[in-house]
């Protein structure tokens, strides 16, 4: 059985609060927002991974040139 989502509405002109089911539009908007967030998070994590890989590659090349690990860290940390 699907859960019926409800929301609480507080009317500031009367102080009354009511609980009503979400509309179909609200449910659709929540799903749109959730998917947009997931896509943005996936992009962010991919960019972070790319950056980390580039950093590791650069560090390895600097070490191969003869720099010590402390020197490499001083340059890239």
């Amino acid at each position: 059985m699907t859960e019926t989502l409800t929301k609480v509405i507080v009317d500031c002109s009367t102080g009354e609060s009511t609980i009503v089911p979400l509309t179909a539009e609200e449910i659709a908007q929540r799903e749109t927002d959730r998917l947009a967030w997931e896509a943005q998070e996936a992009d962010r994590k991919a960019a972070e991974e790319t950056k980390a890989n580039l950093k590791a590659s650069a560090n390895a090349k600097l070490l191969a040139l003869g720099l010590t690990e402390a020197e490499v860290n001083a340059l890239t940390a």
Partner: protein
Amino acid sequence: MTMTLIETKTLGTAQASIEFTSIPQTFTDLVCFVSARSTTTTDFYRINLNNSASDFTGRYLGSDGPISGTSFPAFGRMPESTYTANTFGNDFWYLPNYTSSANKSISVDAVAENNSTTEFYIDIVAGLWSNSSAITSVKFVPNSPNFEVGTTASLYGILKGSSGGVVVS
């Protein structure tokens, strides 16, 4: 300057959103304090203004590093259902000049408490709602289904003034 409580709501049952409607247009700014907890593993919620989820942009600086998103709506943080029992977030929302016809800025200072050294979040958000309408309703919407029982949202009106203290009722 005065700070006046407009309305406050504590949830007695889990809800998919909390909405303040018919907000009086007599104040200068709006402030909302939200103490929320999630019923699931989601850890944030969004704001909708005038029932709109569109036209939000912003940047946030978070505990997991500096991140920006041009399409990212302003958001608050809250503990997930797996966090330490009975912990709730502490979020501060500021909406200046909410009745003006200019675009509306949004400032958020948020923390998802966990009473733990792991799995907690701190965020500062600078948001913008590109809309000329006066704000008449504010809605908070979790990323997935519900705010937990005990979640509280309190809406205050800030009235500018040349002197005087803070009045909180």
